[in-house]
């Protein structure tokens, strides 16, 4: 519609917010989903970390997933900046950036794991 006028670019800040929203949504959904599942009361709790309350799970997740999440956020920044140059919609940019960052983080994690 704009013809030869300069192509609109997605707002970087808004795209980043959309991507962060995706992370928050998915993490919250997994926690809520897991919290709603009843567990057997007579489980064998001898092993470490075998029986945890949802609160303890969140704490453990923060300790383990904290660095992963930080890495994910760092990866998200350049991916969003790159995508925002091509895509004009902030929502599409943020969604693709979140997806791409997760894929990139998983690839980096696998390389790191395989390299050890």
């Amino acid at each position: 519609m704009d013809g030869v006028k300069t192509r609109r670019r997605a707002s970087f800040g808004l795209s980043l917010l959309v991507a962060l929203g995706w992370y928050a949504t998915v993490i919250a959904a997994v926690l809520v989903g897991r919290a709603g599942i009843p567990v057997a009361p007579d489980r064998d709790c001898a092993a470490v970390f075998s029986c945890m309350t949802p609160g303890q799970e969140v704490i453990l997740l923060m300790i383990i997933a904290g660095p992963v999440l930080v890495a994910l956020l760092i990866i998200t920044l350049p991916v969003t900046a790159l995508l925002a140059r091509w895509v004009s919609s902030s929502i599409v940019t943020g969604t693709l950036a979140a997806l791409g960052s997760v894929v990139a983080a998983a690839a980096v994690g696998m390389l790191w794991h395989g390299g050890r």
Partner: protein
Amino acid sequence: MKRVGFGVLLCTWLYGVPFLLIVGLIRRTSSPYLPTRAAAEGFGTTTDTILSTALLLNLALPVVGTLLAGLVGDREWTRRFLWSLAGVALIYVAVSIAGSAATAPLVGHTPSDEEPAPRITQCIPISGGRGCPGG
């Protein structure tokens, strides 16, 4: 004010529907501890409600948004909501892929429970079929 309303509607669809879908699919694929048949049916009903609400909202929110934006005459938001219909289709395709991977239907499935099967206490002999011990 108008823009805020449309923004809330779009964000509810964008994040609310995947949120409900993830919660529902985690419940659906889990193997929960359910001591009685009634508990299993209750768990299954809640899961069904979450999943069907997500699938309904997935279509309803963008359609309502498109209609409202068209009614108000906001071309920018009409365009956005029309584009979100592509997302609606994507979500339905993703759900149908997840549904085809499952052996039981995605909605309307009751998980197994721990209730012991009722013991047979009475034997009814069938002529030509089966006899009863001591009879």
